[in-house]
């Protein structure tokens, strides 16, 4: 009897719908940023179809903002592609960090999962992974596809309705993104319970990202901060 009820819970917890449900808290953040991206893309002169394409193919907030700005400024195509490569290079680290939880899947299935990886879905997935040895494929698809569709719709909404909303900052929607990162950071710490080391790593990351971003760029800052702060965490754990 115990087994049956536990199995039911396990099945429900790892289903596609559970992934959809676990994505819901990020919907507001994606919606406001995606909307803003749509507005910026429209202002840069992209057509609705082009905006739909960029949100579905590139599917990256910071990358799309930069793309819109550089297209608007008539930058050469190669310069735009090269810049976006650097801005999105942090996915390399997140994709590596999430890989141990998908050992049970074929490389092709992992390509499907990785192709929709974002800061937010990564954060939600790593919180889910804290108490587990592996993550469910269906759950991850539920999370990824919900975020993906929400992003697409938000971009289109921004492109269509952007001009009617004069001041989105008044409603504080721009703070949905930092709010979400704060929530993901705190939840991650609670699930790990390595307080001293995690706070040390987090504070190092903040200090490094500010320092490096000031002399290079924000995207290089995030990558360098992640590499050095993770190394600090690894080293401190080794010495103890």
């Amino acid at each position, binding site marked *: 009897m115990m087994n049956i009820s536990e199995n039911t819970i396990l099945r429900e917890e790892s289903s596609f719908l559970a992934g959809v449900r676990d994505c819901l808290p990020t919907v507001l953040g994606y919606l406001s940023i995606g909307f803003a991206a749509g507005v910026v893309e429209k202002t840069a002169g992209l057509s609705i179809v082009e905006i739909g394409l960029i949100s579905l193919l590139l599917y990256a907030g910071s990358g799309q903002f930069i793309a819109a700005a550089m297209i608007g400024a008539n930058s050469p195509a190669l310069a735009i592609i090269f810049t976006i490569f650097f801005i999105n290079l942090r996915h390399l680290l997140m994709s590596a960090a999430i890989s141990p939880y998908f050992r049970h899947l074929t490389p092709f299935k992992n390509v499907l999962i*990785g192709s929709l990886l974002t800061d937010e879905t990564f954060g939600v997935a790593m919180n889910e992974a804290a108490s587990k040895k592996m993550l469910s494929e269906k759950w991850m698809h539920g999370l990824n596809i919900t975020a993906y569709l929400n992003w697409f719709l938000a971009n289109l909404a921004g492109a269509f309705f952007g001009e009617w909303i004069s001041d989105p900052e008044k409603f504080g929607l721009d703070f949905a993104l930092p709010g979400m990162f704060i929530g993901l950071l705190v939840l991650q710490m609670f699930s790990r319970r390595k307080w001293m080391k995690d706070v040390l790593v987090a504070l*190092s990351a903040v200090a490094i990202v500010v320092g490096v971003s000031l002399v290079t760029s924000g995207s290089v800052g995030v990558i360098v901060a992640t590499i050095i702060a993770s190394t600090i965490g690894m080293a401190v754990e080794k010495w103890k």
Partner: protein
Amino acid sequence: MEVRWSIFLIIFGSALVTFIPRVLPIAILSRVELPEWAMRWLSYVPIAVMAALVGQELLMPNGKLAPLTDNLELIAALPTFLIAIITRSLLGTVLAGIISIMVLRFVF
């Protein structure tokens, strides 16, 4: 309602260079057994990357260091962190952040 070739090439090119770092590690690393130190290093990546993103959003919102005394976002982050710690709810945290910054912008 059209897609210009020049724009399509930019979108396709940037999508490709974003796709590769997204899928390469998860496709390859999940097939190999990583050494213990590498696993330990990777276990700190979520904390490091989220903290870096928070730091960037709060301290340098426009790519420049914002003055500490005139940074409403940084003040709004305090109740947001507090709600995150108390409720441990992602949605609650996002809402707390939005309400905090809304109130602060209304008052100041």
